[in-house]
């Protein structure tokens, strides 16, 4: 959803008027840091105070200001507390279940949580499907997004660039359950011949060997990966587009003046400039893919068998396993098992997102 806002923000910061002469605590100075401190006067100095003999430099502290400021700061702090609370409460609920777990949580593939007295749950198999679908999606979506972002910023006619970008953004507006429905009912059956062909001709490669579900069912990593790729396309495109758009004009014109063709210009100026942004955009896409639930919940065929490390495996990702188990949440320990899996997912997406933001932040400093 708001993955695109990362870049939007930097774009709008650029437009901020009156940056240099921003008054205390006003926008524009926010990224600069030096312009304001917590002691900044809350409001203008009214003449009434000087008339009463107070020194003119003492700022007026009105109760309204104090309350409003307090609320605003409280709201800011609330967000920080919220993230901490997510981690904390998930951990609180997960620990009893992890204690009662009879197999290794990270090393086992068994998932048997119906009986709270003999809990057996491990995320090994879930982890494989999660990683396989996400990485496949990323591998498919990265080159395409790069192409779209370049097309929208440097190839499409100026007048059409905006509507075209809107079309790509529309992909992000389609709910994931509709992607899931389309994936298993429409796209999946279309992909079956492709999957069968791959399996017949490249079956000696482990990735294309027979998986643990039937290929004709289409509920496998391949279908899931393709659908996920479509879902993360708009995420990667939106952020990369914003970065590519900010390529300095001098670089572009310099390249063109030296006789570069359009492609050479793009290769020598736009791509090197936007590389960090593109990589971080892809990380954001990866984060989105790792956490995607319902599309995969509908697409992947359930199976108890161990995955064969093939594109034609079924099973569940961490997220879709939690969704599948939602009906089982009738006692604390069983729910705790799923919450433990959710905690892993939270940590995973936290790490991926933090890394993505760090790459962008570093790029901004050096740029």
């Amino acid at each position: 959803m708001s993955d695109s806002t990362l870049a939007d923000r930097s774009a709008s910061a650029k437009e901020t008027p009156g940056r240099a002469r921003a008054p205390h605590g006003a926008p524009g100075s926010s990224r600069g840091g030096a312009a304001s401190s917590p002691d900044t006067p809350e409001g203008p100095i009214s003449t009434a105070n000087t008339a009463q003999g107070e020194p003119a430099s003492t700022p007026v502290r009105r109760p309204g200001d104090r309350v409003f400021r307090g609320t605003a700061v409280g709201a800011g702090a609330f967000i920080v507390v919220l993230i901490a609370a997510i981690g904390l409460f998930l951990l609180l609920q997960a620990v009893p279940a992890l204690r009662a777990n009879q197999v290794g949580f990270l090393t086992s593939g068994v998932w048997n949580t119906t009986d709270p007295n003999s809990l057996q749950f491990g995320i090994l198999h879930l982890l494989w499907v999660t990683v396989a679908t996400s990485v496949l999606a990323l591998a498919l979506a990265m080159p395409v997004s790069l192409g779209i972002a370049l097309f929208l910023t440097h190839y499409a006619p100026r007048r059409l660039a905006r509507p075209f970008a809107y079309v790509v953004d529309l992909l992000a507006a389609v709910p994931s359950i509709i992607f899931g429905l389309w994936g298993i009912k429409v796209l999946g059956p279309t992909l079956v011949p492709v999957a069968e062909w791959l399996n017949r001709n490249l079956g000696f490669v482990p990735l294309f060997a027979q998986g643990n579900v039937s290929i004709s069912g289409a509920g496998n990593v391949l279908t899931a990966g393709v659908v996920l790729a479509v879902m993360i396309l708009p995420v990667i495109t939106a952020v990369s587009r914003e970065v590519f758009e900010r390529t300095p004009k001098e670089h572009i014109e310099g390249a063109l003046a030296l006789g570069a063709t359009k492609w050479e210009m793009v290769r020598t100026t736009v791509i090197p400039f936007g590389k960090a942004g593109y990589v971080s955009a892809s990380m954001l896409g990866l984060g989105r893919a790792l956490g995607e639930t319902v599309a995969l919940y509908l697409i992947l065929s359930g199976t108890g068998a161990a995955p064969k490390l093939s594109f034609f495996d079924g099973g569940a990702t961490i997220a879709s396993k939690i969704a599948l188990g939602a009906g089982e949440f009738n006692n604390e320990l069983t729910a705790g098992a799923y919450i433990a899996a959710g905690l892993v997912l939270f940590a995973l997406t936290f790490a991926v997102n933090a890394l993505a933001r760090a790459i962008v932040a570093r790029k901004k400093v050096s740029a």
Partner: protein
Amino acid sequence: MTTATTDLHRPATGPAFQGVGLGRKVKNAVATTLVALAFLVAVVPLVWVLWSVLEKGLQPVLHADWWTHSLYGLRPYDDRGGAYHAIYGTVVQALSTAVLSVPVGVMVGVYLVEYGAGTRLARVTTFMVDILTGVPSIVAGLFVYALWISILGFGRSGFAVSLSLLLLMIPVVIRTTEEMLRIVPNELREASYALGVPKWKTIVKIVLPTAMSGIVTGVMLGLARVMGETAPALIVGAYASSINLNVFDGNQANLPLLMNDQFANPETAGFNRTWGAAMTLVLIIMLFNLLATVISRLSAIKK
């Protein structure tokens, strides 16, 4: 060889400007084609998805019953009834999400732009908002389950779904507010301060009203996004085939839950209900997107 010795008009050095070589031309053309193709590759699934939904979902939606009846008392193979209960649930849950998320989100935005500016807390908050943006919806659902249902002991309800959607909605509202507050001209604030208006009143009476249309647009877009979220609803909500007007108590359907429920129904009726619900969801999301565009067109900040 022979011509070279006789051609006295041949310049001593090659021309300074040479045409673009064939290889470079071909490379350029290939790159242009690939880049345009990439765009087409994105359009194909979009059109395909929307077409599938339209083709399979239009017919059920055209029944008058669809908008006015629930599925109460209907058996899986009765191809009648409608999605009234789920449409009501989707709208009411989205509205309660909006009511809860807008004040919090706007205040955080105000803090980041008007008060925080460069402080350590503001930097941490900005980072946390980024993280919150990336929190998977299923984790939001699990968090609400852990806190609201497991620890505080409330039951599954439409409101619990709203609470988890809240987590997904808040970062959207914050980002929008932040962006909109940043483009409010400083002259407006300065003029207000010069007249002796306190800072909080300046924000409430001058800054926020100026940014209002943008914030409303962002909220509408955000709502359109969270409405289709299914994962949290699976965990903290519960499907009901009849209408439940009370968002705070009892099972309440919404469109994604209806789709999920009927997806398991192998009858023709199940097929129609699933795709009909998908069509309805797309229509409602389109309506919200359209409203957002109209609002932003009608009242954009004049620069």
